[in-house]
């Protein structure tokens, strides 16, 4: 625990962040400004998510940190170590055992429960930024519910690519009111945004917090003749055989051999532990 206050931030800062979180939960999808603090890590490393996690953690919590679905990437490992050291909380790689999950770029495959909180790291919270760089104007558009511009972006996608090419950070409308950037998760994850757990989004550099309370309506924007599709690689996982999980493509050798594996490493491991086997896996959970 060293000389730090519990979870690094001082109590006053945590209270300020909690107020922003509560306001965010009260107005789902609305971006609440907050006074982001310097954290002992660069922006882009999830300082927004880290501050939200710090303000949310209690000593009894069990924390899981994932980056692109994996617990063992540098970013995930360093954030997990940070909270082990500054908060002394238990950590886990098992989705079901975690009470707080901080994530970058994925929603876990396993359904989350009412006892869990999912904290997202957000680089750019403003979904309208792409076409309207003026902050004063985007704020007005949100407050007046002027969201035509979001569809201009989708229109441009279709006219250039033949379909909606946006595959990450796919915009959603929350509870029929605010248009929200769900952070750069694959659009495959969008349907999961309607879940039992609390979802909190933290953008450090942009100083914004927003939230989606449990069981909130979250609709992905689309056109009548180009409906939203939660697409993924048309392939089962080569290790666990799952047909329904989001996959990463892995290059195996110079000859161009590839394999598809679950991006959610905990999900894949637990399926293999249950005896599921994919094309290149064995029941012991080792790749061939």
């Amino acid at each position: 625990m060293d000389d730090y206050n519990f979870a690094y931030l001082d109590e006053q800062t945590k209270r300020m962040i909690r107020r922003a979180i509560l306001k965010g939960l009260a107005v789902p999808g609305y971006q609440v400004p907050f006074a982001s603090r310097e954290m002992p890590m660069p922006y882009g490393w999830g300082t927004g998510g880290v501050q939200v996690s710090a303000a949310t953690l209690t000593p009894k919590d069990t924390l899981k940190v994932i980056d692109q679905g994996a617990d063992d990437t540098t970013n995930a490992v360093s954030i997990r170590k940070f909270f082990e050291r500054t908060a002394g909380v238990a950590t886990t790689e098992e989705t079901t055992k975690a009470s707080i999950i901080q994530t970058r770029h994925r929603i876990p495959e396993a359904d989350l429960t009412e006892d869990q909180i999912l904290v997202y790291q957000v680089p750019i919270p403003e979904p309208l930024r792409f076409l309207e760089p003026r902050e004063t104007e985007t704020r007005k558009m949100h407050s007046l519910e002027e969201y035509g511009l979001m569809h201009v972006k989708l229109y441009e996608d279709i006219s250039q690519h033949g379909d909606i090419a946006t595959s990450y950070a796919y915009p959603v409308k929350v509870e029929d009111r605010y248009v929200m950037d769900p952070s750069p998760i694959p659009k495959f994850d969008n349907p999961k945004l309607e879940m039992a757990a609390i979802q909190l989004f933290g953008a450090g550099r942009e100083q914004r917090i927003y939230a989606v309370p449990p069981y909130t309506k979250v609709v992905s924007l689309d056109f009548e003749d180009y409906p939203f599709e939660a697409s993924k690689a048309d392939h089962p996982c080569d290790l666990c055989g799952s047909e329904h999980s989001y996959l990463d493509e892995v290059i195996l050798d110079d000859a161009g051999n590839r394999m598809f594996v679950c991006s959610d490493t905990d999900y894949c491991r637990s399926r293999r532990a249950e005896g599921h086997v994919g094309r290149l896996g064995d029941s012991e959970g080792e790749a061939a």
Partner: protein
Amino acid sequence: MGAQVKEQDMTPLLQVNALTKMYGPRIGCKDVSFDLYPGEVMGIVGESGSGKSTLLNAMAGHHAPDQGEVVFDTRVDGPVDTLKMSEPERRMLGRTDWAFVHQHARDGLRMSVSAGGNIGERLMAVGGRHYGEIRTQAADWLGRVEISDSRIDDRPSAFSGGMQQRLQIARNLVTGPRLVFMDEPTGGLDVSVQARLLDLLRSLVREMGLSAIIVTHDLAVVRLLADRLMVMKDGHVVESGLTDQVLDDPQHAYTQLLVSSVLQV
């Protein structure tokens, strides 16, 4: 002029009453009043700095005037002072029944969005959610402003100045507005390009039965487009009337000067 007949039995589309806009102690425009009837085109002329743009922007709600009323005959509630509307109501009007054509096309276009997206924006802003229909309408409007629909996916930056201005007009007219504000729509264009744009504007105004208020310092533009004319000097309207009457038989000394200086050019 049809406008004279209409005045008997019609509610004005727009009633401007004693509109005044000050810039500190300096007059922007002072005590301007007039009625605009459906289907009528009003020209506003005057030298540089006479207050034309100030008046136009005050009417269009781009900046708040100090005094006066701008009463618009809304579809649902009839005549309403737009200056007393809430901001959402006024912005909604700006996307539906009103349109504003800027002198510089880049002020009225999204330069990073394709021509089709530029035209489609207002449709999507009022709830258009069918890509195929939006695209069909965009292509149709490109045709109406004489741009090949093969350019539908090009950005305005790849267009000539005249094409950009025609695209801006298409983008504004696609939702069938009832009142169009235009600030020097032909300014900054080559003379031959100006003539073509004027012809286009004239036929669109006639086809759609548009009401319009056109600011210009070019008397040829008002001669061609405007039913009526207001002449401004130092923020005041010094003379107004039917276009041909004002231009052929100017009463005010300043108008006489304006008309004669044009004849000399």
